[in-house]
Structures are given as C-alpha cells and as structure tokens.
C-alpha cells in the first residue's frame, strides 16, 4: 500500500456555476463514466458521485501516475479548456480526501447543511460502483465508514432538525409567497426522485392536489398514485399550468421546455394568480427569464441555496459539533489505513508459519506410530512453538509507539521472513 494514495477530485455548487456543471461529461449516469475511470492507468479503485450539486470522483491510485490530469480531462470533457480546469476543480489527497468525503456524507458540505438526501445519493453511487466491481478493500471500507459517520452525526447533533434539503427550501419559499398552502395545487413536470421528494414535503404541508406530467405516462401514474393525484402527459402542460400554483420541474430534457413567451398568455388566463416555479433539473428546464414576469417566481437549485442561509446561524452551532465528529472519524480512519499495511503482513506471517507447521508435522507423524492423543499433543506443541515465535514480531508490527515508521517496519518484517513475493 505505501505507494498508493486516495485521491478525490470534484466540482460542486460552490466552485462551479450551474452553467458549467450542466456541460460536464461525467454528469449523467454512472455505468459509462465508471468504466472510463477504471480504464485509467494506475487507478486501482474508483467511485463516482453525481448529483445536481456536485460531481465527485474518488480513486485509489498509484502516487506517481498522471491520474489527476487524466481524471480532470475525463470529467470536463471538451466543455472546459484544460488550463481552466483548476478554476473549478478541487483536488484532495489522502487525509484531506477522507475528511472531504465525510464532510459530504454528513451534509456539512451540502448547499443545505443538514439535509438527508445526500446520504441516499452517496449510497446509490456506491451501489453502482460496487456492482461494476470498481471499488476494492480501501474504498469499500471508506465508503461504509462515511455512511456510519453520517448516521453518527445525525443522531448526535440536531443538524437535520430544521432543514431537509431543497424540498425544505422550496416549502419555505412557497409559504412566503402563498402563506397558506392548503388550497394550492402542485404540478410536477418530470417524475424523477427529486421531484418526488419535494412533492412529499408539499403534501406534508397539506396542498390540495398533485398533478404529475411526464413524458411516459405510466411513470407519471405511479407517482401520482402515491400522492392521490392525477397524471397527465406533457402535451397538456400548458392547460395544466393554468390551474397549478406550485410547479416543480425536474425532467432530464437537454433544453429549456418552458419559455417566457409560453407563460405570458398563461398568466393572463390565470388572472395573474401568482405561480411559483421550482426548477431542480440540471440542465435547467425553465427559462430563467420567467422570473421577470409579474407574479411569477422562479427558483433554480442555485437560488434555493440562499433561502437556506436564513436558518444557517441556528444550524452553525450544530455544524461545529458535527465537524468535530468528522475530524474524529477521519483520524480514526487514517489510523485504520495505516494499519492496513500491517494487517496483511501479519496474516502472511501466520500463514507462512502454519504452512511450515503442517508440512513438518505430516512428515514426522507418518514415520512415528502414535496414538491419537499423542498425535494431538505433538500438533499442539508445534503450533505453540510457532505462535510463541511469532508473538514478538507481530506485537512489534502492531505497536503504535512509532506510527510514522510503519512502512519501514512492514518492509523489514517482510524482508526478514521472505514474504516479498506473496501478496
């Protein structure tokens, strides 16, 4: 392990504007990007997280390889010139990478601190990577650890008490526009998971009706059933907009599906009843100029960020506690990682001793005519000798007193016991 490092590269809502994130080559899907990542020379384990707010790549790779530049090129594709990569990209190595991953999983790095959604997204990303066998012992352990850190933060702090991600922000805003949501209608354009989450919260606030408009009607019907709503096809969008008060758009469409000039006549038909558009799709579904119309309020996911700032001071106190937990867990993981090189060496050492014992016992026992009890006694003695001999080198390896020299100790033992070409 000594020559391997953990590397985390990514872009998120803080470093990169939505307009650039929309263009990313690795922004869509998991399967193909993961294959591409695995193909990079020197990359041993890889994992990709892609959400609407961030794209992050985590790899275990050889230190000397040109992996960073490779991954960056893969991430940005042709959309950004190579010399501009560093404007958007952040790169963390080893302990910083572990720390960052924990910050992400605990939602401390999220647009909305305290949201629970990111953990689900992380798990899903991990499932994809594991299914494609992209992850190995280090990332498996690291990602599982990141899940448990997130759980620990959630149970030990109040960080999730006042915020539930984008859906929460959307509900807050809707309340500022409409006051009471009980007689309001919600229209979902696209039947994605994000839309589902946001709608769930609005339904929790007691909205009157939910209508789902989707390209494939069957998916729309499934979702509509969940909310006791109705399903329509996308062709009916304009007539539905006359009835809706809150519109959540999250289609995978590559272009804008609703333009300013489409909405203008609808506002007349609505007699200027206010309408609240929430565009959580990346790339965006709704024309940003919609916001210029009177009584139309449009928020895309970057805008929702600001809403949440309001509750920030309350949460900041909890975030300090959460950060302490993250620091603690990152340190713990680092020491596990340090030990990782020790553990296989000890295993190899024990295996070698066991093999020698077995070979020598077989050779001796078949020459002597011994009763089963005597045989057992001799076997026992052989194992005792080998384990007592090994006790000192093993405890020397496990000793924490000179942590910095772990690598040297491991090398020494491996050389002394000729474990070099195994493992």
């Amino acid at each position, binding site marked *: 392990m000594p020559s391997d490092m953990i590397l985390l590269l990514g872009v998120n809502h803080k470093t990169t504007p939505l307009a650039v994130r929309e263009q990313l080559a690795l922004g869509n899907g998991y399967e193909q990007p993961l294959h591409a990542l695995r193909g990079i020379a020197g990359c041993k384990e890889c994992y990709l997280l892609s959400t609407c707010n961030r794209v992050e790549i985590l790899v275990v790779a050889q230190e000397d390889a040109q992996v960073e530049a490779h991954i960056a090129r893969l991430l940005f594709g042709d959309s950004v010139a190579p010399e501009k990569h560093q404007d958007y990209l952040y790169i963390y190595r080893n302990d910083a990478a572990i720390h960052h991953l924990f910050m992400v999983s605990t939602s401390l790095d999220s647009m909305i601190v305290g949201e629970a959604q990111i953990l689900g997204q992380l798990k899903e990303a991990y499932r994809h990577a594991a299914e494609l066998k992209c992850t190995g012992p280090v990332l498996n352990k690291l990602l599982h650890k990141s899940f448990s850190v997130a759980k620990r933060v959630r149970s030990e702090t109040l960080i999730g008490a006042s915020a539930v991600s984008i859906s929460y922000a959307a509900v807050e805003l809707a309340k500022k526009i*409409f006051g009471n949501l009980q007689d309001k209608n919600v229209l979902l354009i696209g039947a994605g998971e994000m839309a589902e989450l946001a709608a769930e919260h609005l339904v929790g606030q007691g909205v009157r009706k939910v209508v789902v408009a989707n390209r494939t009607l069957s998916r729309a019907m499934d979702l509509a059933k969940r909310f006791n709503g109705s399903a329509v096809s996308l062709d009916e969008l304009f007539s539905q907009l006359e009835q809706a008060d809150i519109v959540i758009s999250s289609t995978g469409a590559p272009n804008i599906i609703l333009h300013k000039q489409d909405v203008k006549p609808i506002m007349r038909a609505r007699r200027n009843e206010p309408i609240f558009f929430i565009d959580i799709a990346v790339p965006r579904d709704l024309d940003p100029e919609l916001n210029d119309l009177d009584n139309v309020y449009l928020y895309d996911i970057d805008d929702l960020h600001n809403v949440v700032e309001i509750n920030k001071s309350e949460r900041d106190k909890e975030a300090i506690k959460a950060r302490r937990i993250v620091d603690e867990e990152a340190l713990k993981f680092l020491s596990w990682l340090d030990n990782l090189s020790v553990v296989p060496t000890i295993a190899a050492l024990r295996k070698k001793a066991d093999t020698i014992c077995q070979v020598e016992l077989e050779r001796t026992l078949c020459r002597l005519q011994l009763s089963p009890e005597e045989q057992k006694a001799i076997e026992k003695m052989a194992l005792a000798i080998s384990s007592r001999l090994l006790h000192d080198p093993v405890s020397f390896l496990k000793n924490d007193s000179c942590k910095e020299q772990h690598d040297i100790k491991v090398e020494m033992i491996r050389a002394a016991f000729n474990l070099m070409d195994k493992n």
Partner: protein
Amino acid sequence: MMGEISYLLFQAVLAASCMALVFYGVFFVKQKEKIRTIARLILIAAGVLQTLYILFRYLQSGYTPITSQHETIVFFAWSVTWAYLSFRWRYTVKNFGTFISLLVFILLLIAAIASRSINPLAPALQSWWLPIHAGIAVISYGFLALAFCGGIMYLLQEYELKSKRFGYFFTRLPSLESLDQLNSHCLAIGFVFLTLGIITGSIWARQAWGTYWHWDPKETWSLITWFLYAAQIHQRFSAGWRGKRAAIMAVIGFASVLFTLWGVTYLLGGIHSYAQ
C-alpha cells in the same frame, strides 16, 4: 386650565405612540411574542388617549376638532390607529403593527409641530355636516393608509423574493398573499368611505355654496384620488390586477391622498382650504 390639560394630554398621546413604536420596533428585531403583546397594549392605550384628546378638544372648542392642521392630523392618526386595531381584531398580518405604529408616530410628530391654537370656527363650517363629511373623509384616509403600509411591505417582500437576495425583511415580513389580501380589504373599506366622503361633501356644498360641485382644487383632487382607487378596484376584478401592481397603485393612491390633504391646502389654495 383647560389649555394645560389639553397640552399634557397631547404629550401623553405622543409619548404613548412613541412607546408603541419602540416596542413594535424591538419586536420586529427580536420577534418575541411577549414584546408584541406589550406593544399592542401600548398601542391600544395610545388609541384611547387619542380619543380622549379629541373629545377633550371638542369640549374645549365647542366644535368637532377637525379643522386646523393640527386637529386634522391628530384625527388622521386616530383613524389609522383604530383602523389598524379593528383590522387586527379580524386577522393578523405579521409585523404590520411595526409599520403602522411608525406611520402613526410620524403623523403625531407633524401634529406636534403644527400650531395647536384654537381658532374660532369659520362661518361656512358651522354645520353638523362638518363632523360627518370631514370625519368620514379622514376615516377613509385611515384605511387607505393601511393599504399604503401593506403596499410598502408587499414591495419590500416582493423585491426580496424576486431578487433572491434575502435580507433583513424576508423572515420578518408576512407572505405576499396575505399582504395582497390586506391591500384589497383595506382598499374596499377605504374606497367606500372615500365615496361617502365625497357624496356628503357634495350635499354640504349644495347647502353652503349653492352648487353640488364647483371644481375647487380640493374637490378636483379628491375626485382624482377617487378615480385612482376606482380604477384599481375595477382592474382587480376585471383583469386580475394584483400583487405588485396593486401594491404600487396603493402607494400612488395614498400619495394622492396626502396631496389632497396637504398639497392642495398649501400649494393650490381655493375656498376649501380652511386649515391654515
């Protein structure tokens, strides 16, 4: 003796309104329920004191105190206060009291600067139409002032929602819909009183001056104000004018109200301008 009591009573009105403003201001910053309760009680006390002051001045002068500049403005402040308190009794609009108490205090400050002397009543005003016509007109101004405050709040809140920069007001102001509703309710009441005010004035004019209407600047400006509000109400029901446009109209309408009240008296004159 009467003069001294009257003077002290007005100082008490001013002090109480100031206290109400201070407590509403603190409530605006801290958002603590307890402070709001205190602020509301003080505002009610201020309203009662205003009523007492007006009654006392009536006893002192022998006619309805609504002719001099000082009297008109005190009556205006009184009508804003009680319009708000009567409204408050129906339903609450978050932090509306802060804006109202600010307006009331500003009005009373102006009244404090204006001359408090009691002048003999002009012969043309010696009629029981005086309290009816002037009273109704100023009560309408009270409700229109509420619509104005609601309009200002709407514009502040709308600006924050549209620009997506959430400042100090965002959490403290109520929802747009409740402000729009407030606007529409206050306007409806204010408009009815304004219409009644013009009608009673017209009848009185027939008695005092011989014709129902003779294009005195005050009459003209009242009519302009009336048309501004009428247009707004008409547009709300026919074309669905609401929200920002309605809020801007409420502000413009109130500017016209203030001009009718003061601008006409000082700039245009005319036979209607008694309060000098």
